[in-house]
């Protein structure tokens, strides 16, 4: 705990350490992210409370992926500030990374490893029990193909492996960027079950998807266009 007589230490603690009273899962303040000269995210203000399932909708190029990758600390904000689970987006990113899982439309798999080897490597990286790999692969319906190289998988199978990797952990914040892409209905149901389980356990999820048939479990919906978060709509307007 920083000394009350040392304002610098107090500021430093506030910037990098957990906030004292139930910090929101996500708090962004005027966050802008620029690639070259093109802004992909423009002055985004967002607050996501713990236990919420936030649905982010918007057309291609709206900035949904950039928003999720900034929250995941895969991208740094060019301007603005924010915190995730009480940790600063820049100075507390290692703490954030231990507590979140990003399931993106790139599956982040090694093509020449099998599904099982990919998940075992993920277990090593996160210090998890590799004994969980087989049950998780069964859960996503890939037990039969677990020993085959990912290079020969369809996009749907790859996405299932990525979903299985996300299921290995119980992150406090689940970030899902088009998680239904390439999945059949059964695969989409696996994703929905994971989100519902997170919600039931009081964990937080942010879901970005085009799929209008999915996302009914969301507690709130926000829209994006042109890199901007639009004013929130009520449930009737969303329908």
């Amino acid at each position, binding site marked *: 705990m920083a000394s009350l007589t040392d304002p610098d230490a107090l500021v430093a603690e506030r910037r990098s350490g957990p906030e004292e009273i139930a910090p929101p899962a996500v708090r962004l303040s005027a966050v802008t992210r620029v690639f070259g000269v093109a802004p992909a995210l423009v002055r985004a203000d967002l607050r996501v409370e713990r236990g919420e399932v936030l649905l982010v909708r918007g057309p291609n190029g709206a900035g949904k992926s950039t928003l999720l990758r900034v929250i995941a600390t895969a991208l740094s904000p060019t301007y603005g500030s924010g915190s995730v689970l009480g940790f600063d987006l820049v100075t507390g990113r290692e703490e954030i990374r231990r507590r979140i899982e*990003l399931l993106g439309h*790139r*599956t982040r*798999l090694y*093509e*020449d*490893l099998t599904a099982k*080897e990919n998940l075992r490597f993920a277990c*090593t990286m*996160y210090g998890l029990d590799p004994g969980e790999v087989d049950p998780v692969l069964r859960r996503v319906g890939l037990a039969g193909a677990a020993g085959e190289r990912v290079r020969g998988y369809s996009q749907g199978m790859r996405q299932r492996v990525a979903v299985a990797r996300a299921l290995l952990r119980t992150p406090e914040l689940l970030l899902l960027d088009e998680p239904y892409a390439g999945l059949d209905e059964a695969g989409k149901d696996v994703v929905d079950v994971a989100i519902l389980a997170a919600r039931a356990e009081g964990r937080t999820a942010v879901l970005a998807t085009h799929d209008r048939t999915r996302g009914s479990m969301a507690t709130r919906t926000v829209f994006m266009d042109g890199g901007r978060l639009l004013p929130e709509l009520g449930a009737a307007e969303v329908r």
Partner: protein
Amino acid sequence: MTLLGQTVAVAGKDLRIEARGRYALGAVLPFAGTLLVAFGLSLGPGRTLLQQTAPGLLWLAVLFASILAFRQAYQAEGEDGAIEGLLLSPIDKAAVFLGKAAAVTLELLVMEAAVVPIVAAMFALSLGDAPLVLVGAFVLGTIGLAAVGSLFGVLVESPRAREAVFPLLILPLATPVLVAGVKATELAATGRGGQAGSWLSLLVAFDLVVLGVGTLVFGHLLED
């Protein structure tokens, strides 16, 4: 998990990918072999000239081949965004650097084990006069090259970088390895291995500096 355990896991993963695909060795071995045969034929049958040029040509082949190996080491990370998985994982990012350097070192040593005897036969290079110096020069030089390549190879996967900058970064930094490797090899091949101590020391110092700097800065290079 300790830094060593994470390093072994990253190196093991890279070597498994290489063993499955033989991407690096499949490109590197024919490249190095062709380069050396072409040099040998262009220099003609003069035994003295061949012997004199062999160490330099051998190390040039190793250097150019290593650039292919470095590129391959990061290709698997870029194919489906796997490098972002490493970035977001809670491991010590230095383990990624050290693991990749270890894997590339082993791959290059396998390549050298195949190429050096061919060069010895073609260029009448003596391998038996100071074998320990020769092995030391290649092991130390290869560690140095692998460390430089693993440090800057990550920039190729960066959205801000261009692939063309990779050799521009690597080649000047690899010059001390090239010079020390050539001199130590030359001394070993001409029966003067006892005089190679200073060159081997230079290689040790280079390896320690690059491995140390890489361990410290790699995480920053990996970040957005």
